[in-house]
């Protein structure tokens, strides 16, 4: 595996030289000049994770190792890995930036991202572990006709993974351009190359440990930042809020607002504001976040990495705790940034905005707290965060292609482990290339929009399909496929007709679908379609489908016959 050490060297050299190059040639856009502390610390992260990958590569022999780390991850480890998979740079930088700009509204986002986890625990996690091996389509297809169900599973997995991946790649490119002074295309390519190395050689074992390391780093640095903020206010949240309101009021009057207007603007950060425009969009968005979490293929896949249902359950408990704790920290960090960043002219550009754009609030706060060295550390952690998330996404996409499409459909199960492994590795390289190209093509796209679309698709397709196939006896192959496709296509269609695409991108005067999120219609319609089609299904397959429920239920509830862990 000396390829890995060579790759590490190449990545370091490219990072360093491209940074220097960007500094030399880029006079017009003027990204931040390279932060050497950040580059060195990021280099350390790359070296450590590639070392882990090398170790993982030696242990990755079968498809079970590659897709699920042989089922040998403990509940606690998997909880951290799930947190590492789920806490994206978008949530760290995006939510703290939103709190920096509007205060309270960021908290609404955070709660939405968290409340899907208990639902996963109560309704899905243990059943998934008891019935599935590698992909969520294993679980849905348990008693149904393999071909149509797996085709749907692969289609919806790739749809969700691609939109989520574009968001991460674009975010990565923009972030790294700002943090390290690298050109956008280089940044996207470095992310693509590293994630390919992790997944290609180390499979799920490497991906899991990259996610665990990243989760610990991210939680650690967010904790330090939150404690530093709280310490300067005598550990009184109320004092922090009071000062933040003062700062926002002063900034508003400096912009020329009258005194009552400025006071109202200042007070507005302590209450819900314009984030939620109308009740329909509010509920729809809430549904997308809550149920979308329960349908994300790269998250569902993590439940197959533990030895049994008990460990799956424990991993959600740990993940919920870590993720919830993280959102509380980002709340403090956002308010800390209002007080410590918005008042310091070194962090502001000539127009009074944040240097480097709105997403940089947490990054500037790091510098205000701990100087260049801590800034470098936080930058490196932000980069690591993106890497861990894209690695998980790539693995989920690759397993859908190699396990659901190739092994189960094309070869109808008659394939060797080596053969299937080869296909998934080719897919990994293909997906990485697609991710890099899409990342460059969609450079100007709104990242938050892409993420919410991925959640809407997962909530409208995977979630209804999974829930009804697990819990409803009458569910049939036809119902699942028709309902799932209806949900996914309707969510996509309504999104195209919504203001974001129809008006802002396509330039029409008025949106056909006036709300910001499709889920309030697409998700219930998916449930109804599954139900109606299943009830009306008179085919011979439907008889088999319904008859299979009893045994599936016993297995799901007791864990009898569940795939066992391979020992390491």
């Amino acid at each position: 595996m000396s390829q890995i050490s060579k790759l590490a060297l190449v990545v370091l050299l490219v990072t360093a030289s491209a940074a220097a190059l960007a500094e030399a040639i880029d006079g017009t856009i003027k990204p931040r000049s390279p932060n050497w502390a950040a580059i060195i610390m990021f280099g350390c992260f790359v070296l450590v994770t590639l070392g882990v990958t090398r170790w993982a590569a030696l242990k990755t022999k079968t498809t079970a190792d590659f897709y699920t780390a042989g089922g040998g991850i403990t509940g606690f480890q998997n909880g951290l890995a799930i947190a590492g998979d789920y806490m994206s740079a978008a949530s760290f930088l995006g939510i703290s930036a939103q709190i920096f700009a509007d205060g309270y509204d960021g908290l609404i986002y955070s709660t939405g991202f968290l409340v899907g986890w208990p639902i996963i625990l109560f309704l899905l996690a243990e059943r998934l572990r008891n019935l599935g091996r590698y992909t969520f389509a294993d679980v849905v297809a348990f008693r149904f006709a393999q071909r149509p169900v797996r085709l749907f599973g692969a289609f919806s997995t790739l749809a969700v993974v691609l939109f989520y991946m574009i968001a991460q790649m674009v975010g990565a490119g923009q972030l790294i351009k700002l943090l390290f002074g690298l050109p956008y295309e280089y940044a996207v390519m470095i992310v693509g190359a590293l994630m390919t190395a992790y997944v290609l050689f180390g499979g799920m074992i490497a991906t899991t440990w990259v996610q665990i390391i990243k989760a610990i780093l991210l939680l650690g640095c967010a904790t330090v930042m939150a404690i530093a903020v709280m310490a300067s206010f005598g550990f009184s949240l109320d004092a922090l809020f009071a000062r933040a309101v003062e700062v926002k009021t002063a900034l508003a009057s400096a912009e020329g607002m009258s005194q009552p207007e400025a006071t109202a603007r200042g007070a507005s950060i302590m209450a819900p504001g314009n984030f939620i425009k109308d009740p329909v969009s509010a509920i729809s968005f809430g549904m997308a976040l809550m149920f979308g979490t329960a349908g994300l293929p790269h998250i569902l896949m993590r439940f197959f990495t533990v030895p049994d249902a008990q460990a799956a359950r424990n991993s959600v408990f740990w993940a919920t705790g870590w993720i919830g704790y993280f959102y509380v920290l980002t709340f403090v960090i956002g308010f800390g940034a209002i007080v410590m960043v918005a008042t310091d002219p070194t962090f502001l550009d000539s127009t009074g905005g944040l240097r480097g754009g709105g997403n940089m609030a947490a990054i500037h706060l790091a510098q205000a707290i701990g100087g260049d060295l801590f800034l470098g550390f936080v930058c490196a952690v932000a980069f690591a965060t993106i890497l861990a998330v894209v690695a998980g996404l790539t693995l989920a996409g690759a397993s859908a292609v190699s396990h659901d499409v190739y092994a189960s459909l094309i070869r109808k199960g008659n394939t060797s482990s080596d053969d299937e492994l080869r296909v998934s590795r080719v897919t990994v390289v293909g997906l990485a290339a697609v991710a890099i190209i899409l990342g460059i093509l969609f450079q100007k796209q709104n990242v938050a929009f892409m993420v919410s679309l991925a959640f809407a698709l997962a909530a409208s397709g995977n979630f209804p399909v999974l829930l009804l196939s697990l819990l409803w006896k009458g569910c049939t192959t036809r119902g699942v496929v028709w309902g799932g496709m209806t949900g996914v296509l309707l969510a996509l269609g309504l999104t195209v007709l919504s203001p974001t695409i129809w008006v802002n991108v396509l330039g029409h005067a008025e949106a056909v679908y006036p709300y910001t999120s499709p889920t309030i219609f697409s998700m219930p319609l998916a449930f109804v379609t599954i139900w109606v089609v299943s009830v009306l299904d008179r085919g011979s397959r439907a008889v088999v489908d319904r008859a299979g429920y009893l045994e599936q239920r016993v297995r799901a509830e007791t864990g009898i016959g569940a795939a066992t862990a391979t020992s390491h």
Partner: protein
Amino acid sequence: MVMPLRKIAEDPCYQALVARRARFTWALSGVMLVVFFGYILVIAFNKELLARPIGDHSTTWGIPVGLGVILVAILLTGIYVRRAKRDFDPAARALVEKYTSE
């Protein structure tokens, strides 16, 4: 070894376990849904309720309510894990053992 899945499905112990667990998980899911969508509906229809300061502090009612939603989510997962370990796991294990020894 082949387990008699259909026989287990007819076992009253199995049926009791499944019913107990279903009641509990749906109840907890219901609590989470009511708490979260209640929060969203308050934001959608009555923002002022959350904008009111607590006493003469700067902190508004929205802060404990929002952080409370996060806390409820974590607590509910804890409650489920505890009950599952004490009640559902031993019941499921007993069931599997009963049919393994036969």
